[in-house]
């Protein structure tokens, strides 16, 4: 039986209590994008600044939600700042792969080999602390909200 300490690792609570990169950026030039969790009402607002060389030069986050969605947003912002858009996309894939095995279980899908592949060769670092979330399937959407929103934001920022 998973316990609370699986979910609420110290590093998560730290990001929750002291979120990184909170704030706004003038948009435009920055890209502003919103994400909602329709079932619980969590909201994430991201401001992304992507340089001409395809680097995520700045990130700011706003919105409200539970510790998991807030910590995930904060950790995501720290992880992608200064990375290239391609690296950020690889991170999204890897993070969602980490979550999807169990999310798809809740929604009746099948985990696939593609999941394993997406995780290969990507260093998640601190983000791995969020892995405990998969033991609480309902909370997975809290953790992935920021990442889905980021995916949308990167598409918009790069005109994809």
């Amino acid at each position, binding site marked *: *039986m998973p*316990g*609370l300490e699986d*979910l*609420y690792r110290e590093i998560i*609570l730290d990001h929750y209590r002291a979120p990184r990169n909170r704030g706004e950026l003038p948009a435009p030039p920055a890209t502003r994008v919103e994400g909602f969790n329709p*079932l*619980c*009402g*969590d*909201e994430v607002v991201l401001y992304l600044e992507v340089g001409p060389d395809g680097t995520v030069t700045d990130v700011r986050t706003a919105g*409200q*939600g*539970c*510790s*998991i969605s*807030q910590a995930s947003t904060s950790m995501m912002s720290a992880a992608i700042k200064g990375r290239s858009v391609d690296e950020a996309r690889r991170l999204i894939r890897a993070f969602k792969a980490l979550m999807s095995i169990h999310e798809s279980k809740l929604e009746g899908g099948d985990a696939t080999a593609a999941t394993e592949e997406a995780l290969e060769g990507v260093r998640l670092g601190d983000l791995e602390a969020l892995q405990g979330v998969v033991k*609480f399937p309902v*909370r997975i959407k*809290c953790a992935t909200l920021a990442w889905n929103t980021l995916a949308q934001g990167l598409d918009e920022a790069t005109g994809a």
Partner: protein
Amino acid sequence: MALDVAALRAQFPLLARTVHGRRLVYLDSAATAQKPLAVLDAMDRYYRETNANVHRGVYTLAEEATAAFEAGRARTARFIGAADPHELVFTRNATEAINLVARTWGAANLGSGDVVVLTEMEHHANIVPWQMLAAERGIEIRWVPIDGSYRLDLTDLDTLLDGARLFSFTAMSNVLGTTNDVPALAAAARRAGAAVLVDACQSVAHEPTDVSGWDADFVAFSGHKMVGPTGIGGLWGRREVLEAMPPFLGGGEMIRDVRKEGFTTNDVPWKFEAGTPAIAEAVGLGAAVEWLDGVGMAEIAAHEARLTEYALGALADRFGDGITIYGPATAEGRGSAISFLFRDIHAHDISQVLDEDAVCVRAGHHCAKPLMRVLGVPATTRASLAMFNDTDDVDALVAALAKAQAFFAL
């Protein structure tokens, strides 16, 4: 007469289960009710002894199935105080009931610029159907605001109702717990010439209902919130209003005749029940209201009021300013749904920690996002009580909240 809560509890098989090795403390009856054995047995018996399609077969089994289905309708109609069982249309849930009105009565009566009045404390089920009509037909929606004591602010009610075609409001808020004065609101609507829809989804399981005394045109409710099965709900409508309405969905059962060139419709309520209905569920709903009447709705209301009073007191005593309750501060004029903010801890996190102690509460926007925006909060935690809850359950809630406070060290 006080309820024998222990005896009631014993009739709910699910309450005997444990979570994480602990006794289940179910405080989410406002989301869905648990089911007494009598309801499960009635449905099981239907499937084992009577199951056949209804209204169509001549043989004994089909006749018995039809009688059981229609008896479920009649019993439910009696429970809500309907004069005529044929004024009760079966739907999947309250949501479908309200959509039915929007799509049929609304299609016939609402055009561009016509006004529908809602309140700020409505559930999405009583908002989105009207927003769909607003987008399609250009109707206007007006909102009765709430005041600082979490009740409807009726100061400008007559102005809001002026020229309105429909006033659609909840009898009891699923977030605030607030009960509204249905006859008074219906009377105000009548004075303005507006039709009246009452969302009785919450109230119907918690206090006696008498639709005949409400002077409403429509009343919507869900079976699963009134100790009945999922998959069934009801729309009560005044007969002449139902009769004047165009049909909702098309198919078997709702027709009188079909030719290649077109169709004619059946009598009410079947006109609004296309296809094979939720037969076992109608039987289960009949058993549910029978069970509720057996316990006594007045007794249930009194028990829940006492327990709500106890809970409001216990939460305030223990946490003082640490807890903010969104809803009337006493059990007067409110149901048993208690929504709150606790410290700075997000509702999801509270619910997660409470679950360790097998305390089941809802966390989120409770399908009332416009209300949440009015309240200025993204989410609340909600504990809601039923006839089988007791002070032990409330004490378990308080204790678990104290643990959450410690866990998040706030």
